[in-house]
């Protein structure tokens, strides 16, 4: 990401959230971005995933300028190469865990790898929950299923936005360990937005987002 500027209009004034931000994440690298609420962490992740477009600057993923792609193409590219984890798990309530894991192959129109689903579920300790709907799971169980969904299609980049924000400390630690390990095992880079220093410590690099710019935390 290079020279990223992003401004929002709240109806009365314009707020510049990102102001010429640069960020490079290497393959397999785990990067944590910390910052106060409203500092632009989620915006940074949205831009990195092509879910939003910068006012200025460029976003490249695997050598491709995704900010310049048309919306359908950008969506398809994101689906193929990026895994997403949200703070509120965002599983589809109408589908059981297995169907939630099958969702990304369906979106990318690729074959479902049932073996991979099973092995991921085992690795994340949710193999007994595959036929259960999200509404009948605990918060930690849901987030583990969400991690499995983010990794099921072997993405090159995982974007995790406060993945442990709604969990208690013990569960958050377990979920974060699993996320960092599985992303690493899968060879995916991880860009983590978090308030939690404990979560950030599981990453290779920690950055702080202040005044619309990133700076090293350590």
């Amino acid at each position, binding site marked *: 990401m290079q020279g990223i500027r992003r401004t929002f209009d709240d109806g009365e004034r314009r707020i510049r959230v990102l102001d010429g931000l640069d960020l490079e994440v290497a393959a397999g690298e785990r990067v944590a971005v910390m910052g106060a609420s409203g500092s632009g962490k*989620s*915006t940074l992740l*949205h*831009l990195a*995933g092509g*879910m*939003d*477009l910068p006012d200025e600057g460029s976003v490249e993923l695997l050598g491709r300028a995704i900010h310049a792609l048309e*919306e*359908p193409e950008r*969506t*398809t590219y*994101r*689906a*193929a190469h990026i895994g*997403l984890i*949200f*703070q*509120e798990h*965002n*599983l*589809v*309530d*109408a*589908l059981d865990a297995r*169907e939630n894991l*099958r*969702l*990304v192959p*369906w*979106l*990318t129109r690729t074959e*479902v790898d049932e073996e991979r689903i099973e092995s991921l579920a085992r690795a994340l300790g949710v193999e007994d929950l595959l036929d259960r709907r999200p*509404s009948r799971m605990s918060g930690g169980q849901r987030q583990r299923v969400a991690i499995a*969904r983010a990794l099921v299609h072997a993405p090159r980049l995982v974007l995790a936005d406060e993945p442990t924000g709604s969990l208690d400390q013990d569960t958050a630690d377990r979920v974060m360990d699993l996320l960092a390990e599985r992303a690493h095992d899968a060879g995916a880079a991880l860009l983590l937005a978090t308030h939690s220093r404990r979560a950030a410590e599981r990453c290779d690099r920690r950055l702080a987002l202040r005044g619309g710019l990133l700076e090293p935390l350590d």
Partner: protein
Amino acid sequence: MLTRFVHAFARRQPAQFLLAVAGIAAGIAVVTGVALLRGALLDSLDDAATELAGTDALIVRAERGPLPVPRYAELARMPGAPDWVPVIREAVRADGVRLEAVGIDAFSAARRFGVDPAAPSPAGRSGAPAAGTVARTDRATLDLLGLRPGDRLTLDHEAGPVEVVVQPLDGAGPGLDRRLVLDIADAQAAFGRRGTVDELLAPASARRWILEHLPEDLAWRTADERRESARQLTSGMRANLAAMSLLALATGLFVVYSVLNFLAVQRRPLFATLRGLGLTPRRLAGLLLVESLVLGLVGSAIGVVLGTALADLLLALIADPVNEIYGQLPLARSDPSAGLVLGIVGAGLVAAMLVAVPIVREALDVPPGRMAHERRPPPLARRVVPAASALVAAGAAWVALDARLVAGLGGLFLVLAGLLLVVPALGFGALRIAAAGLGRSLPGHALTLLGAGRHRLAPGLAALTLALALSIGMGAMILGFRTAVDDWVAKLLRADLYVSATTGSLDAERVERLSRLEGVAAVSTVRDLSARDGTRVTAYRLPEAAWGGFQWIAGDPESVREAFLSGRAIAVSEPFARRRGLSVGDELSVPLPLGERKMRVAGVFRDYSTDRGFIAVDASLLGRARGPVGSVGLYLADDASRERVISRLAEAGDGRLDWITPEDIRSQSLAVFDRTFRISWAMAVLVACIALVALVSALLAHGLERAREYATLRALGLTPRRLGALVVVQTLGLACAALALAVPLAIFVHYALTLVIQPRAFGWSLPATLPPAAPFLWVAPSALALAALAGLAPAWRVARRRPAEALRGAS
């Protein structure tokens, strides 16, 4: 504070506010339109007579057709005869506005209004004196037409355009609204009515003279009696219209419910916050009820205005058939009374409040401070089956135990309401099965996701199912009825030609001459007699061939014929038998010209010509009072040519005979039938349109509630186009479910209308045949196409947002 919330809601959510207002306005508009139409059917029928000769004016008419002027002259010359006011009435249009031209003689007009309708007019708008036929009307009608005194106006009449100069008629009451008063001679010339008048008006003081001296082939009534007669005649039609308007209102309420629901869902986080901050349940309930009241008030006010305009459109649909069937021309009153407005607005407010109750209950369930709370209601089926069973049982019991029309309609409402309660559970069950069958395809996922919002979508699904069931069921009933009428007319008309006088009736000598025409083997005659109580007696003289035309519902055909021809018994039409509770073997006092006579009912025959019914007697019972007849059927010899007989008729008739073939009568009957039921189709379309609005608002609510899922799907890789397609598939899925459920409901509606409502409203029964397939085939593709269109708005709404924006909005 509460009003600020309401104001903020209208400002921030203009589309939803408008949708809610549109829902109430649409329902109220239909109710208002139908209320005004019902009023117009009753009130305006004889307003002109009341206006011209007073409320107790006596109106004399010929039994059939207009009255020849010589006949009027003869009446006027009779000793002690009252001062007749001859009147002709013609339907005309001016600039698309339906009017009635009333021709009266100058002396009567001068006496009533102080002006001579034919008097030369003063200068027109151009300043030059205007010349030509003068038409006078009240100021309101002049304003309606945008005219000033002295302006020229072209009237569209079936005989051709007629140009008149308009002048005000000061002192005219509301009875002359939309009526133009012309001098009778001018009117006769302009409308090609030379030599005939429609009616003679006489003052109330002439009652005794009329009782003693009026010839038997002339009928008389007071304006009030005619109004009462019209009330009875049109009761079935008015009841059906009222039922349809209530259904439209009920469907409109589904829209209001969906929209209010949508808004409640949208503001759930706000409610949670306010509750957390200390807003009491009572004040939250107050906020929502005030909102509903504001919506109800605004929607009702707009609905009354729209309904007033709608009344004119509905009247245009119904005026011709009413005129054809009941012989009276209703004109629209475009000014609803204050009482009507207050009643309708009050009903709108009450309905809006009632609809708000479940939404208020749900809003109060939101725990203080919990933004993401989602209410999980128990399964639909478990909640509704007991209530549905109770409603169906109550409705069925009401229909079975009470034979009145109101019980039929009320029972049908209850049964439909009960069945509609289980519609969502069945519909979403079917969608779940379909989703499983479609697997991991886009439609499969679309339908699976739809199931999660079933409690939100249930009202929209029920509204659409109701509208489709009514449209299809009513269409099936109308087509089935049409087939029955066509079949009845085809069987009834056994003669080769039917002859009547161009004006008045045919006297015995002319009938005799017709029977002697070369090629004529036999004649039948029909003469209508109306008793003072409105009982219609029709005297038949029928050759053997004519008897096959009767379809006997009760009574053995041979013994009926034998008893009828011997003058010992009568036959009655089915509506008459039903209205009087008569069956074969019962005795009835028959009003005959020579006095009342008790006679036995030998048979009941099918008849769709009049819903008030009539008694059929053999012409021999009239004895010396046989008199002139209305029409004559000619039965030709086997070797006779109809064309030749027609040319002989033309020669013998000397321009005073009209004739028509059975084929033409049949096609004219069906044309009248089709015009009569135009309004039913129009009402069904209105209900269906309102239901579609309900579906759209339900889908919007669904889209909002599932915003997080849609945002997630977009973020995970669902393209805008596929997300849009997913929403449209959901709409189509709902429409398919509604259609599938509407089919059995429509069959139920068809049989309920055919077997219960028709006999109770009009007195006649219809054969219980299978419903015709055509309405199903028309409605299904239209509903699916409209549903796909309706799905575009919510599809666009969810698909147009960037994933980041959608995720932010959903969190």
